[in-house]
C-alpha cells in the first residue's frame, strides 16, 4: 500500500473508486488508525500520534461498509444526548424513530446502514471516512443520505468516501481518485 501524499480541506469531499481488493477500505482504516500504518497524518496541524488513538478516532470517524453492533437493542448504541440526535436525524433518512426500540437483527440491511451512519454523524467529527455508505440503499434513500452529507460538507466537515458508483463520486466528490493496486491515481 502507498505511499500516499494528500491533503483534504475543510468542507472538501474526496471520492475514491476502484476495483474490489485494491485497498480502498484499508486506506480509510489506516487513516482512522484502525490498521497498522507508517508515515504521518495531521489534523489541523496536530500529528495523529500526539493524540491518544481513541481521541484521534473520535475526530476522524470511520464508518465501515458493514458496520458492527455490540448491543441487542438499537437504542443501546447511543448514549443520552445522542438519542436526541437520532430522533432528529432518523426521519430525514426515512427511518422510523421507533426503530430505536427494535432489536438490531430486526432491521433490514439498509436500515442498519443508515442507522450506523447516524451513529457516526452523532459524534460531530471534523472528518468522516465513509466506506460504501449507500451500498445497500435504493435511489431515494441514497439521495437522502447525500443531502445530509452535503449539509455536513457545507458546515466544514471533510469527507473521504469509498464508493463503487462513479455517478455518486461525480455528484459528491470535489476530487475523484482511483485506487489501483494500493496506489491512488487520478480518476
Amino acid at each position: 500500500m502507498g505511499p500516499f501524499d494528500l491533503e483534504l480541506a475543510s468542507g472538501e469531499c474526496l471520492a475514491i473508486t476502484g476495483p474490489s481488493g485494491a485497498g480502498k477500505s484499508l486506506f480509510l482504516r489506516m487513516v482512522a488508525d484502525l490498521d497498522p500504518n507508517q508515515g504521518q497524518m495531521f489534523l489541523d496541524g496536530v500529528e495523529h500520534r500526539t493524540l491518544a488513538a481513541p481521541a484521534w478516532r473520535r475526530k476522524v470517524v470511520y464508518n465501515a461498509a458493514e458496520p458492527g453492533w455490540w448491543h441487542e437493542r438499537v437504542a443501546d448504541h447511543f448514549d443520552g444526548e445522542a438519542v436526541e440526535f437520532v430522533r432528529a436525524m432518523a426521519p430525514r433518512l426515512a427511518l422510523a424513530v421507533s426503530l430505536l426500540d427494535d432489536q438490531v437483527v430486526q432491521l433490514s440491511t439498509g436500515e442498519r446502514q443508515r442507522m450506523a451512519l447516524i451513529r457516526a454523524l452523532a459524534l460531530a467529527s471534523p472528518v468522516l471516512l465513509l466506506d460504501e455508505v449507500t451500498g445497500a440503499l435504493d435511489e431515494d434513500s441514497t439521495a437522502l443520505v447525500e443531502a445530509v452529507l452535503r449539509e455536513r460538507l457545507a458546515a466544514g466537515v471533510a469527507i473521504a468516501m469509498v464508493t463503487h458508483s462513479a455517478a455518486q463520486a461525480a455528484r459528491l466528490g470535489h476530487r475523484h481518485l482511483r485506487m489501483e493496486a494500493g496506489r491512488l491515481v487520478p480518476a
Partner: protein
Amino acid sequence: MNAILLTPFDLAIASVLIVLDGVLSLVLRLGLHTQLAWAAGRMVVQLVLIGFILRLVFALASPLATLAVVLVMVAIAGREVAARPEQRLGRFGNYAVGASAVAIATFLTAILALTTAIRPQPWYEARYAIPLAGIVLGNVLNGGSLALDSLLGGVVRERAAIEAQLALGASFGRAMRGLIRASVRRALLPIINQMSAAGVVTLPGIMTGQILAGMDPLEAAKYQILLIFLLSGGSGLAAVAVVYLAAMRLTDDRQRLRIDRLTARTRGPRP
C-alpha cells in the same frame, strides 16, 4: 484414620470388570476391546509410576524437588490450555498466556491454602503441596481453556462489533468489555454447577476417597468444602488472567484490534 490397604490381588479382582467389558465388546462386536485393554494398561502404568515418583519426592523432602514436580505439572497444564482453542495467538501466544495464567492461579491458590487452612509443617511439604497443586491445576486448566477459547473465538466472531466501537472512539478495553465478561462467565459456569450439585447429585471425588480411606464423613466434607472454595477461586483467577493476558496480545500501542495476530488451527478434513 484407618485406611484399608489394597493388595495386588484386590486390584486383580476389580480388573475382572474390565475383562468383562472386553468380553461384552467381543460378543456385541463393538470393536473396543483393544482400546479398552490399552487404556486400562496405560492407566495402571501411569498411576503406579506417579505413585513411585511421589514416594521418592516425599522421601527427599526437598523444596526444590517439590517445586520441580509442580512446575512440570504447570507446564503440562499450560499446554493443555493452549491447545484447546480453535484460534492461535502468534509467537506461541496461546502457550505463554495459558502457562502464565495457570501458574499465577495455581500458585496463589495453593499457597493460600497451605499457609492458612491446611498448614502442614513446613507449609511446602510435598505430601500436601503436590496433591493440592494437582487438584487445583485440574480445575484451573478447565477454567483457563474455556476462557481462552471463548475470548479468541469471540474476537473473530465479533470483530465488526469491536472495531465499530473502536472506530467511534472507544478505548480497546471498553470495546472488549462485553466479550471479556462473557468469557469469564463461561469459564466459571462449570464450577458453579459443580458447587450446586455437590453432595446432592454426586459425592465429590476427594470426599469419596477420604471416606473410603476411613475418614469421618463430616471431616471429609470440611476438606471437600475447602477444596471447592480453592477450585472456584483458582478457576476464577485463571479465567481473569487468561482473558486479560490474551486481550493484551490482541492490541497494540494504538489500541487497535490486531486480529492479524490470530490464526485458525490447521486441521485435517473432518471425517
